[in-house]
């Protein structure tokens, strides 16, 4: 969207050639205009008025034009500044606070539109007056006396433009169905991954333990080792079963190569956790060569950051698991910066948590065997995304093939 402002020029703007001069200046400075209204005085002493919408390539370019137009006597019809109120307590927003969406958002502050940084849904907007910045801030991080945007005047939310081309990534409004042609969808995902690499944007994978149970671990490992994954979000389960398979060849006691229950296999995952706890953590276990393969090994070996967020039903947990949900959220927030594509595979809890943190501009791919889960995930917010009903291992196998791995 091109930044624009509405300006008004009035007075004897025709005979004094001020209006033609204003229009010439806009074009000389590479801007464009649209005359919204023009009323011309009937008699010589009557003033004329023109309202123009002035647009430019960028905000600084627009400011240059406006500065020049103000010198020629034009007055910008600025939208009012946002209303601000101070937070009265730590962690509490003022009662009329503006609650954010995950769409690109701008606020009018000190006469200029400023992009809200780190946009995320269901937060407040805190303004830093010393640097004139607006930062999307979760309720929990609001400090007493912070200046918080209240009401919606002076707030502009930019809807995502629908692509004119038929794209794989479209708004999620078509029902998710297992009958969709998967090969094309997966080829589209592979294409998007290549685009992200070219644009130097990060690819995030959010994965649940079913990915390991279905035997998809080896494919995810392959993607990580080939550099297609920049950050991994998971829980205690995925890491535990991945390490269990690395140590014992089983996931939840099931032999992954034969698909049969191993004798006394039901406690393998607990032994795996215990081993890692003994080592002090996954990184230490990799360093000591206790763990020599698997998804977590690939992450450590290839320096791919991972965030393991804990939950109330976790066994152990592994020492790497962040058991404080708020700390986990913050670490995830730091890691989602720069992400352009998120693959959410066989995960409900972590996928929803991640979806809440992502701006709407991030493309998402939701993969699950259960159509209801895919619909639920994809319809949260206005994701640009695709939903694929598939078992995790089959999806990853085909994705690896599409990426020629």
């Amino acid at each position: 969207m091109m930044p624009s402002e509405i300006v008004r020029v009035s007075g004897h703007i025709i005979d004094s050639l001020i209006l033609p001069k204003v229009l010439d200046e806009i074009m000389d400075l590479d801007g464009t205009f649209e005359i919204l209204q023009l009323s011309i005085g009937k008699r010589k002493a009557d003033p004329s008025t023109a309202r123009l919408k002035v647009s430019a390539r960028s905000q600084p370019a627009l400011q240059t034009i406006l500065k020049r137009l103000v010198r020629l006597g034009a007055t910008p019809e600025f939208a009012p500044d946002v209303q601000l109120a101070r937070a009265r307590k730590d962690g509490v927003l003022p009662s009329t606070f503006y609650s954010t969406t995950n769409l690109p958002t701008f606020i009018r502050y000190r006469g200029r539109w400023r992009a809200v940084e780190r946009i995320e849904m269901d937060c407040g907007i805190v303004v830093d007056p010393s640097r004139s910045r607006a930062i999307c801030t979760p309720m929990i991080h609001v400090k007493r006396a912070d200046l918080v945007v209240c009401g919606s005047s002076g707030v502009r939310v930019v809807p995502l433009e629908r692509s004119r081309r038929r794209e794989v990534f479209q708004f999620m409004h078509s029902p998710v169905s297992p009958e969709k042609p998967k090969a094309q969808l997966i080829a589209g995902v592979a294409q998007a991954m290549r685009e992200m690499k070219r644009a130097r944007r990060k690819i995030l994978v959010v994965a649940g333990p079913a990915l390991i149970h279905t035997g998809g671990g080896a494919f995810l490992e392959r993607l990580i080792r080939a550099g297609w994954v920049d950050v991994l979000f998971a829980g205690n389960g995925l890491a535990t079963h991945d390490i269990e398979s690395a140590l014992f060849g089983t996931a939840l006691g099931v032999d992954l190569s034969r698909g049969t229950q191993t004798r006394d296999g039901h406690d393998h995952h607990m032994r795996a956790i215990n081993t890692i706890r003994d080592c002090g953590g996954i990184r230490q276990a990799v360093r000591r060569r206790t763990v020599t393969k698997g998804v977590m090994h690939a992450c450590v070996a290839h320096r791919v950051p991972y965030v393991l967020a804990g939950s109330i039903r976790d066994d152990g947990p592994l020492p790497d698991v962040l058991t404080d949900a708020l700390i986990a959220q913050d670490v995830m927030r730091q890691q989602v910066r720069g992400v352009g594509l998120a693959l959410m595979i066989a995960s409900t809890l972590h996928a929803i948590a991640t979806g809440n943190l992502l701006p709407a501009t991030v493309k998402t791919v939701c993969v699950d065997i259960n159509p209801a889960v895919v619909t639920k995930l994809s319809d949260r917010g206005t994701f640009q995304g695709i939903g694929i009903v598939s078992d995790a291992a089959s999806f990853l196998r085909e994705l690896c093939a599409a990426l020629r791995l």
Partner: protein
Amino acid sequence: MCRPTHYTIAYEINPWMRLTRQTVQRRAAQQWAQLHRLLTRLGSSVRLLRPVAGWPDLVFTANAGLVAGGTFIRSNFRYPERQGEEPVVERHFRARGYRVVTLPRGCNFEGEGDALWIGSTLLLGFRFRSDAATHERLSRVLEREVLPVELVDKRFYHLDTCFCPLSTTSALWHPKAFDRYGRKVIERTVAEPIAVTGLDARRFCCNTIVVGRHLVMPRGVSRPLRHRLADGGWVIHEVDLSEFLKAGGAAKCLVLRLA
């Protein structure tokens, strides 16, 4: 007019002013007195504004505001160095029964320095001192057409340094002091414009006082211009105003037309 009792170069707010090139008080007083005498001799009646210490440019009364009948539109000076003159002139005109109109702060306007009548149209010079947006307020107060023209040469920072209406149809002007839009506006508004050269303009020939058919000009008018004006039936009186040129002002700057 205002006696140059406290006139000096106390700051630099235009390219002519140099703190190192100070005025000579006695000579300034003589030159001013000579101008005053000449105007009286030509039949003008001159009212005096009392000089106030600390406001050296008060002597340039043309910048104090604009008189239209019983109304005085007071200036809003761009530079703080001159803003102290505003209450002085406002008190003066109120005391003499004028309806004083003030413009909102931020709406810069430097009186007759930037606003000159050509027939029933007021030309307003803008950019260096006055603001273009002021023209709409002026036209509302005066109920006349006001045409803003942009000045582009810092040396000709006020309209009265590069434009001087001689009658309802003719004017002296220095075209290079205006941009192409301003030049076109003046060519359309003034039937017989007399262009002056850069040299004449730098000698402030456009800063002329018109009294009937008499032109009171600063000394140094070029021979061609003098002939041209004489051919048009104008009687030229040259006055040495070298002390006031040091501040970027000459004849016209030293007077404000009351009627």
